[in-house]
C-alpha cells in the first residue's frame, strides 16, 4: 500500500501569546540579520527535557556540530518528502559561510533515507543517535515519524509534521507548531469562498488520516457555516482514476473544489476539470511547487492555495527574511528554490541554529531544547507566522494563512491587505464555526507587519 503525506502546511498552527513574559534577546548578531530577533520567555514557563536526559553534547567538537537528517529520499513516497533536505543544506551552508554558530561549523554528517519503509525509519533513528552520534535531527520528513526514541533521548528534532505524532514532547519541532488543529482549515476556506463569492463546495481526499481529516474538518466547518456541500469523496484511491469524481463535481454544480490530495492527483483532477469543461474554482492544500507549475501551468491557472509561510513572490522589501531565503537558496540549492518543502527544511534548520546559538557555551541537547522552547515569537527569520514554543508543542492558539493563486507562471499572493500577505482569524475553539469570517489583526511579530 502506498500512503501519502499531505496537509501539514495547511493545518499547522502558530501562536502569538503576547501575554507571556516575553523578553527581547539581549545578544547581538542574530543568525539572520533579515528580521528582528525572536522574543524569549522566562525559564519557568518553558517545556524542558525530562530530568537527567539530554545533558550530553554528542557530535559536538570545538569546531563543528554533527547533525543528521532523516527523510524519505527513495521509494514510493520520495516525491512527497524528498525536497526538505535541500532547504536544510542551504541554510547550513549559509550559516557556515558566515562563520558558523558560536564558532562552530554545521556538519550535516549523515543524510539518512528510510526508503519509504517504516521499519527502516525506526532503525535509522537509532543509527542517527547511537551510531552517528548526531547532536540533533534536522529536516525529518517521513510519513512514518514516531517520537518514541527521539523523545526518550530528548534529541532536538526538527521536521515536517504530517501525522500528528509530533505533538507533545518538548524536543520535537515542526514549522507552524507541532499541535495540529484541523478546524482552522474551514476558516481559511470560508474566507476564500466569501471573497470570491461562491457558496457551494466539493471536497476530495484520500482515505488516509493526514488527508481525510483535513477535508472532513473542512466539510464539517463549512456546512455549519451555512455553505453548501455539493459533493465529497474522502476515499479517493491514491493514483487512481478521478474521472468519476470530476463527473460528480460537474453534476453537483460545486463552485469550489477543495483538494486534500497530493500534487500528482491534483494535477489529474485539474486536467479532468479542464477537459470536462467544469466551471469551478479550485483550492489545493498541496502542490505549490514551482516545478509543478512549470510542467502543468496550463492546468493550474487560477488555482488557490493556503500556505503558512511568506509567499515566495511577496515583495521582498517588506519581507527581508524572504530576500535572505531566496538569495541563499539560489546560491546553494537552486533546483529547490520554489519547492514548498524546501522552505520548511530551511525553517527547521533555522530553529535548530537559533537554539544552538542561544545555548551559548552550555551546548547540551537539553539546553538547546530549552532555548528553543523559550522562543515566543519565532518566525524562522521572517518567513513564518510567529510561534510561541512555550505552548505550541501542545496547543494551537493563532490561526493565519497566506493565500496564493496561480497567475501565469507564478504563485501570486492574494486576499491580503496591503502588503500584508497573512490573513488571521480569531477561532472560538468551543464552537469553531466560520460563519462570515472576518480577519483579525495579525499577531505581533508577524512578518511584513
Amino acid at each position, binding site marked *: 500500500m502506498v500512503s501519502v503525506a499531505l496537509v501539514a502546511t495547511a493545518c499547522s498552527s502558530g501562536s502569538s501569546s503576547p501575554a507571556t513574559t516575553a523578553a527581547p534577546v539581549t545578544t547581538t548578531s542574530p543568525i539572520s540579520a533579515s528580521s528582528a530577533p525572536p522574543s524569549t520567555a522566562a525559564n519557568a514557563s518553558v517545556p524542558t527535557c525530562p530530568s537527567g536526559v539530554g545533558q550530553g553534547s554528542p557530535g559536538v567538537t570545538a569546531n563543528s556540530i554533527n547533525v543528521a537528517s532523516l527523510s524519505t529520499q527513495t521509494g514510493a513516497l520520495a516525491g512527497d518528502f524528498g525536497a526538505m533536505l535541500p532547504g536544510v543544506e542551504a541554510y547550513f551552508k549559509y550559516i557556515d559561510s558566515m562563520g558558523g554558530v558560536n564558532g562552530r561549523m554545521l556538519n550535516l554528517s549523515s543524510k539518512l533515507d528510510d526508503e519509504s519503509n517504516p521499519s527502516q525509519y525506526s532503525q535509522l533513528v537509532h543509527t542517527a543517535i547511537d551510531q552517528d552520534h548526531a547532536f540533533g535531527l534536522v529536516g525529518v520528513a517521513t510519513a512514518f515519524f514516531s517520537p518514541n526514541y527521539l523523545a526518550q533521548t530528548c534529541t532536538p528534532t526538527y521536521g515536517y509534521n504530517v501525522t500528528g505524532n509530533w505533538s507533545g514532547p518538548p524536543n520535537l519541532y515542526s514549522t507552524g507548531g507541532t499541535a495540529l488543529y484541523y478546524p482552522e482549515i474551514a476558516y481559511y476556506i470560508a474566507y476564500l469562498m466569501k471573497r470570491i463569492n461562491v457558496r457551494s463546495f466539493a471536497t476530495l481526499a484520500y482515505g488516509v488520516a493526514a488527508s481525510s481529516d483535513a477535508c472532513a474538518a473542512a466539510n464539517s466547518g463549512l456546512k455549519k457555516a451555512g455553505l453548501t456541500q455539493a459533493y465529497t469523496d474522502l476515499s479517493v484511491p491514491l493514483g487512481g482514476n478521478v474521472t468519476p469524481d470530476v463527473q460528480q463535481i460537474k453534476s453537483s454544480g460545486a463552485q469550489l473544489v477543495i483538494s486534500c490530495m497530493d500534487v*500528482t492527483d491534483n494535477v489529474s483532477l485539474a486536467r479532468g476539470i479542464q477537459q470536462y469543461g467544469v466551471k469551478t474554482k479550485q483550492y489545493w492544500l498541496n502542490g505549490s511547487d514551482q516545478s509543478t507549475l512549470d510542467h502543468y501551468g496550463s492546468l493550474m491557472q487560477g488555482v488557490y492555495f493556503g500556505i503558512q509561510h511568506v509567499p515566495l513572490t511577496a515583495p521582498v522589501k517588506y519581507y527581508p527574511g524572504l530576500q535572505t531565503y531566496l538569495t541563499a537558496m539560489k546560491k546553494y540549492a537552486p533546483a529547490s528554490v520554489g519547492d514548498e518543502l524546501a522552505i520548511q527544511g530551511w525553517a527547521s534548520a533555522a530553529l535548530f541554529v537559533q537554539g544552538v546559538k542561544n545555548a551559548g557555551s552550555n551546548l547540551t541537547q537539553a539546553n538547546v531544547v530549552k532555548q528553543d522552547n523559550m522562543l515566543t515569537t519565532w518566525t524562522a527569520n521572517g518567513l513564518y507566522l510567529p510561534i510561541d514554543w512555550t505552548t505550541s508543542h501542545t496547543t494551537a492558539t493563532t490561526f493565519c494563512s497566506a493565500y496564493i493563486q496561480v497567475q501565469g507562471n507564478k504563485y501570486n499572493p492574494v486576499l491580503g491587505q496591503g502588503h500584508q500577505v497573512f490573513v488571521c482569524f480569531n477561532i472560538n475553539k468551543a464552537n469553531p464555526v466560520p460563519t462570515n469570517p472576518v480577519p483579525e489583526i495579525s499577531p505581533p511579530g508577524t512578518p511584513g507587519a
Partner: protein
Amino acid sequence: MERFLDFGIPGIPYGCAYALFAVGLVLTYQTTGVFNFAFGAQAFASAFVFIVLVQNAGLPIWLSFVIAVVIGAPLLGLIFDRFLFRRIPNTNTTAKVVTGIALLVAIPTLLPVIFGNQTLYNPPTLFFNQSIVYFTLAGYPVNGHDLSVVVVTAVVLSALLVVMRFTSLGVRMRAAVESRRLVELDGGNAGRVVSIAWAMSSLLAGLAGVLLAPAYPELQAQNFITLMVAAIAAAACASLRSLPRAVVFGILLGVVSLLLQGYIPTQTIFYSSALPSIPFIVLVLALLFVPGLRDLGVNKDPMSSVDTPMPPLAAAIRSPQMNRIMRTLWLTILAFFVISMLTWIPANWENVFNSGLAFSTLFLSITMITGMGGQLSLAQGTLAGVGAFVAVQLGNHLGVNMVVGMLIGAGAAATIAIVLALLSLRLKGLGLALMTLAAALFFDSSVFPVHGFTGGQSGVNLQQSWSAPFNFYETSGHQFFILAMVVLTLVVFMVVLVRRGTVGRYLGAIRGSETASAGLGINLTWQRLLVFALSGGVAGVGGTLLVINTQNANPNQFNYQLSLVFVVIVITTGVTTVEGAIQGGIGFVVIQQLLTYVPSRFQGLTVVLFAAGALTYARHPEGIVEFAKRKSTLLLQHHLSGGARLEDQPGGTPGSGGSAQAEGPSGSVARPPLSQSTLGAERG
C-alpha cells in the same frame, strides 16, 4: 442510462490500460511458460529510460522511443531469457515465480541507483496529445491519451492474434512452452523461439510503459505495479490463455470499477473499503471458479524426468567429524553473540540485531509454509501484520500484556491463514501464489487502511503500559533482546519438532507425491490447513516482535511488496532450513545498516542484493547461501580427509544424495532440499 454512460465510457480507456498489461501477461505465459511478475517493472523501466532520454538528455521523442522501447525493452527480455529463465527447467514453476518476483522488486530499486534519485514529471505523450480533447463521446471528452490507449490495445491484440494463430512462429512458441525438448527433437530451435517470445512480450511491456506513463503526472513504479496487479485479475479470468478474453476482461474490470465508483455513495464503507479491492476479489473468484487455473504450473513436459536432481544440503553431506566441528562452531558463535549483545555491542547495533531476530522469527513462517509445506505463499508479511495489529490493539485498548497479545495475535493470523488455505485447497504452484498475493493486496487496500485497526498512515504507537513490567524502550536494559531470543528459540524448537514429527514426515511425503500420500491415508486437506495455520501463527508472532522493537505498528511494515521481499530473502538464504531463515533475518538488517555508511543513493541496494541472490534460485534451489555453505563444507572436508577426491565424498557431485537427514546447527534437522517437483508440485 445517461448516468450509466457517463461513468461507463471513461472505463473503456481505463480498462484498456488493464487490458494491455493483461495481454502482456497472457502473451508471456503462453509463449514462455512464465507468469511474468516483472512485467510491470519492465514497463516502468522502459518509461523511466524514455523520459530520462527525452527530458534530461534532450533527445527527440521518436529516437528515445526507439532506444527505450524498440531496442531496450526487447534487449532486457533477451537478457532475462538468456541469463535467467532459460536456465529454469520448464517444469519448475516456483523458480519462475521467484525469479519474476526478484526482478519485480529489484528493477525499480536499481534504476535510481543507476540514474540517481530524480522526480520525473509530465511524461511525454507518444501518439496523440493528452492535452487535446479530440472528440466527445456521450459527454465524455476523449483526449489523446484515451485515444492512444484504445487504438494501441486494438492494434496490439490484432497483431498478436495473427502471429499466434496464423504463423508457424506462434505454433512453435506454444509448443516450446509445453516441452522445449520435444521441439528440439522435432528439429526446431526451441531456445531461439523462446528468445523471440521474450523479445516480443518485453517489447509489449515497454510499449505499455511508455504509452501509459502520461496517465500519471509523475512517473512512479508503484503506478505500474498497481496496474499490473489489477491486470492479473483480467489475465486470470482469461485462464492465462486467451488474448481476446484478457482484453475483454480488462476492459470490463475498468468499466465496472468506474461504474461502481459512480453509483455507490462515497461515504459508505463499501465505497472506501471494498471498492479498491475489486480487482483482487475478481482474482480470488477467478482462481476459485475458472477451472483452467487450478492446474497452473502442473507439469506437462513428458521429458521432464531428465532434469538433474538437486544437490543435498550442506548439513546433509557433513561427515560426523564435520558435524561435530560445525555444531561446536555454531554454539560458540551463539554464545559469543549472546554475551556480546549483553555486554559490549553498541546500542545501535544491538537494535539492528534485535530487529534481525524479529525478522528471523517472521521468516521462519516462510520456512514452514514453503520449505516444509511446499506452498509458495506471498502473504506472510500480511499475516505478520494481522498478528501485530491485533496484539497492539488489545494492548492499547484493553491493556492486555504483550505476551498474551502476541499469542492472541498469532491465533488471529493463524485463523486468516486457515481461511486462505480453505480458499486455495484446489490450487497449486502459481495458482496458490496468486491467491496469496490477492489476499495480501486485499488486506493492503481494504483492511490495513482502516484507521481504527492500524492507525492508518501514521500507524499505532505502542503504549509503554502494555509491555510492563519490561521496558523495551531502554536498549541498554537488553529486555527486548532477551524476549526476542526466547521467542525465536521457542519458535525454532517448534519448527524442528514439527519437522521431525509426524506432521513433518507427512508434509515430506505430500511434497514427494500427493497421490501416493493420499493412498497411504494421509489427509492432505488437514495437513495443508495445519501448515498454513502454523506458519500464519509464527508470522503473527514475528510481526508482533517487529512492532515491539520499532515501538510503532505501521501498515507499511506489512504491505504486499514487503511480503514479496521477505520471500526473496528467505529463498536466497535457504528456504528449507531453520538457519536459512535466521541468516535471512539477520542478514537483511545488517546489510541495511551497513549501507547507511554509503551515500543514500545506494541505500536501496539491500533488496537488490537479495534479489540478485534469488535470481540464482533456478540453479541453486536450495538457496545461494546454502549452496555456498555446501561448497565450503566440501572443501573443508576435503582438507580434513587429507585430500580425498571431492567426488568421493557424499554430495560431492550434484545429485549424489548424501544422508537423508543430518543434524544441523541449532539443533535443527536439515532435510534434503525440496525437489523441483515438490515446491508447488511442478513435476507430475
